């Protein structure tokens, strides 16, 4: 009974994650995107903690905590800083406009569920739905990277993908071994730093981080 109830809650959490994805796709203001990402990370941490509580696999707590620290506190800070420094507040031109984007994302979500359909029986009864959601989030994050032009939003898209992966790892697979979790977080952090550095240098070099202008290298 409890586990059934728990499954409901986990699915709810995953669903919220997915919703924030759509919100990010729809949102033009960069800082708002960052906030939405932080919110998504909060949901992620919550879901993870819930899974940890229900399954009693304790190192997932650590993962959740790390999520709070890195993805809710640290990375949004960095991004905000970058945004301020580059004083780009909102993204007016996109490769794909918002309504189309939303439709495509809907399609991607359906695709994700369709693909993961055969895997459901494999999953734990507790976290049946979350694998599909995880894949959906990954795809949508990927799509965001394509649809948005500004470096920052691309980074956010990438981070959303990361969240999807994390959901897949913790929720559906009951968490990787701790060492792995730590490694992944470390890599994400370093990756963010490097991206930050690049954004910084690009800004100096091109005085813009509109990545669609980076087309000098071609055949």
């Amino acid at each position, binding site marked *: 009974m409890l586990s059934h109830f728990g499954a409901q809650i986990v699915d709810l959490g995953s669903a919220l994650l997915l919703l924030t994805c759509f919100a990010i796709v729809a949102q033009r203001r960069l800082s708002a995107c960052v906030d939405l990402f932080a919110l998504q990370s909060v949901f992620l941490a919550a879901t993870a903690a819930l899974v940890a509580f229900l399954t009693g696999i304790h190192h997932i707590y650590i993962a959740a905590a790390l999520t709070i620290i890195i993805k809710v506190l640290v990375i949004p800070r960095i991004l905000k800083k970058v945004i301020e420094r580059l004083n780009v507040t909102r993204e007016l031109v996109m490769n794909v406009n918002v309504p189309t984007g939303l439709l495509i994302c809907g399609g991607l979500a359906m695709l994700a569920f369709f693909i993961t359909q055969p895997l459901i029986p494999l999953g734990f009864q507790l976290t049946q739905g979350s694998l599909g959601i995880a894949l959906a989030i990954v795809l949508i994050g990927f799509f965001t990277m394509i649809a948005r032009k500004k470096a920052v939003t691309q980074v956010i898209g990438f981070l959303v993908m990361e969240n*999807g992966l994390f959901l897949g790892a913790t929720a559906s697979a009951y968490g990787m071994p701790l060492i792995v979790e730590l490694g992944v977080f470390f890599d994400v952090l370093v990756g963010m730093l490097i991206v930050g550095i*690049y954004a910084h240098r690009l800004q100096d070099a091109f005085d813009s981080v509109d990545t669609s202008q980076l087309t000098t290298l071609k055949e």
Partner: protein
Amino acid sequence: MAWPLLILVATPLLVGLACLLVRGRRLIEVLQCCQAGTMLVSAALLVDWVVGQQEASVDALLRADALSAWFDLILGIVGATGTLFAVGYLGEEYDRQHVTPRRHRLFFAQFDLYLAAMLLAVNVENVAIMWIAIEGSTLSAAMLIGFERSKAALEAGWKFVILNSVGIALALFGTILVYYSSEHLLGVTSEALRWSELYRVADGLDQTAIKLAFVFVLIGYGTKAGLVPMHTWLPDAHAEAPTPVSAMLSANMLTLAVYAILRFKAVADRTVGPAFTGKLVVGLGLLSVAVAAIFFLVQRDYKRLFAYSSIEHIGIALLGFGVGGIGVFGGAWHLLNHALAKSAAFYGAGLVLLRHEHKLVERVSGLLRSMPLAGAAILLSGVALAGMPPFGLFASEVLIAAGAFTARPDVAYAFLALLALAFATLLYQVFRMALGEPVEPGRALGWPCRLFTATAVGVNLAVLGLIGLQVPSGFNTLLSAIVRIFGPGMGSP
């Protein structure tokens, strides 16, 4: 406890960290030379060890079977010569005051960490930690590519970071799927992520999950391996990175990505049979060869040229693994030959770049006359890369063709045709540079640079020539073991 393995992985890590601490150019160069020597020796010892007793392992963390040992060999040799070349190259830049002492130090630190990450990835036993190591190599490579801080370098670096991060993320999802399906047989433990365990229970894994996982892994690591159409970052990065780094990207990092794909392929073959993976791998491989062969024609930048040649050869090798049978032997051997030839080519290109300070093919000619070392390096490695004996690439390509012909003749026909095309288009450019009369004087190189680079080139070409027609029996043992891993019998690695 296999010392060679530990030393091989630890050396670049420690040396890299040391470079962050120590001061003084000479000291760093000495350190690098020591590292090169150690890597060569320990790689040789490791191969010997694995030939002797099937596998070498350090606790549960590191474990090298035939496949790992083979890639250790590639990374070891090329890593060593690459280090020497880097010493020479950066030394010249240093003398020309293009790099400050600090950045000189920083470069070698990143360079060594990069090598360390790759060596770790090849030998680590845990699937997910392999992923972490590969991600680590990606990030350090990202820093190295942008090292020169020119606009072009930054652009190339940015594209590299974004595309490869996406790729690596997809690869992680594939890894998770594997874990997802394996933990039901092995429990929610790190056991479920051990290669050896995975191979043991592979045929019990869920087929759909593994299929999906392989698709994610193929695209994810395929991005890193530069398979068409995920190759788009590759020419830019190879062209804009400092030349030693370009050499390492081509010869080591792409090879490493292939290793990762092969590991998963071995699992997938046991679960769903080689037909499925073979189809995908052969398809992407052929596509890569085709696109590269055509793109040789429009190259104006000789580093880009060799970058496309890497795309071609990675495609060829994967094709060999895809068709199976003797093709696997050919593919694995091809990777070694390609690594040696391609790094030699980039060494030559680096020297030309130092002399002429531009990368335009049409303004470079008569290299054989003007700078015999670079000319010979580019000409010989070009001829080798085009698939001419006595260099091994000819034999390995013939073996791959033979494998393809026994498995699926239509693939073999396409393969032979594309090889002929690539031959023409590549050599057209190479001969333009190597032959003829020199046009531009360029500026001379200092003797330390010449010494180090000559050593690097010499070692590469010598090894390439020696194994061209007759591989040492130890290599043969490894390759046969690899064939068994992917062979019909599917012997456990």
